[in-house]
């Protein structure tokens, strides 16, 4: 006779406790694992700190991008020179220059408007501070509104808005095309100044919203008769995308 068994018979309490504790242990370790998984993902503050590690690369990036601009200008000159040779090349060059215009790889000039957004830290004291500083979404929405109103080219703080341009707030600065900018942010748009002004002053529009939440001092809009937008100076190298052979 097993003495253990007889003792157990007297103690159903132990067995129910054991079973429940086993279930509890299972659930507990599951919850533990789940929580650890959650902690392992970065919180925004950590992510910001990690990203700011790239700051010293920025200066070098600026230098290289100015070199890129210079080289692209030279290419344009060469293309134009080559085009002088024959009519066919001339046609080819024209379409090439059009494509470069569309891609934002050449400087452009013409009439337009200039919008300056600046942090309004003392204007409206009753607003929370989050409303009185310029955010990436503000810039993004203004740019979007400008495209919608028929802008032909846009630059933000001297950085041309092209395909793939992004605006991001990182700590106290903003990244435009991954280059650091800070308030005031100047957005220049080429297009019909009257139309663009009208779009910007739309009641209930984005400018109205910014002024409403952060004070009228945050926004300044000027109509400009002739201005010059810089060419895109960033990388144009594609790593993954290729043109398919049967593309039309």
């Amino acid at each position, binding site marked *: 006779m097993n003495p253990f068994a007889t003792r157990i018979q007297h103690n159903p309490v*132990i067995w129910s*406790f054991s079973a429940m504790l086993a279930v509890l242990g299972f659930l507990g370790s599951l919850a533990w694992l789940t929580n650890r998984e959650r902690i392992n993902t970065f919180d925004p503050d950590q992510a910001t700190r990690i990203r700011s590690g790239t700051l010293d690369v920025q200066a070098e990036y600026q230098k290289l991008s100015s070199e890129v601009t210079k080289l692209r200008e030279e290419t344009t000159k060469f293309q134009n020179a080559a085009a002088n040779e024959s009519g066919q090349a001339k046609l080819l060059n024209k379409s090439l220059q059009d494509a470069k215009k569309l891609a934002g790889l050449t400087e452009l000039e013409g009439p337009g408007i200039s919008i300056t957004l600046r942090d309004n830290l003392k204007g409206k004291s009753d607003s929370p501070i989050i409303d009185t500083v310029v955010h990436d979404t503000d810039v993004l929405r203004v740019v979007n509104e400008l495209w919608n109103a028929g802008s032909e080219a846009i630059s933000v703080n001297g950085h041309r808005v092209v395909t793939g341009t992004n605006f991001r707030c990182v700590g106290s600065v903003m990244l435009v095309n991954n280059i650091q900018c800070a308030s005031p942010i100047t957005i220049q748009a080429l297009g019909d100044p009257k139309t663009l002004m009208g779009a910007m002053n739309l009641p209930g529009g984005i400018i109205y919203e910014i002024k409403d939440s952060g004070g009228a001092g945050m926004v300044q809009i000027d109509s400009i008769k002739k201005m010059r937008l810089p060419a895109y100076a960033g990388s144009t190298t594609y790593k993954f995308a290729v043109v398919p052979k049967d593309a039309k």
Partner: protein
Amino acid sequence: MILIPILALIVGVLLGRLVAQPVGGIAGTYIAVAVLAGLDTICGGLRSNLEGKFHTDIFVSGFFSNVVIAFFLAWLGDRIGINLFLASAVILGGRIFVNLSLIRRFALTKWQDYRERKRIQRQAQQTQQMNAT
């Protein structure tokens, strides 16, 4: 005897680690509340056992219903936009504290009783020996 529940707990934990699939998304929070409910039921069972009011059926059904209710309360709270998760966490946490303090009181009383009994026994022995000599 007390080793069996502890062993069971360890087995449960190991089983959980073996499965090792972190529960995705928000359901993880619900499991945390369910764990709290389970812990509360265990404490409650321990207490009722000490009080001599322990019933296995009540304990087992209570454990599972509490776990399931806590899980679904947290889930429902998320669906309708109020943090019922907090409600369960606060209530269950409070109950765990109350139960543990009662258990402590019982254990202390038992221990003091035991010492008192020993003391009286010793005294009785001493008087017996004195009477004998």
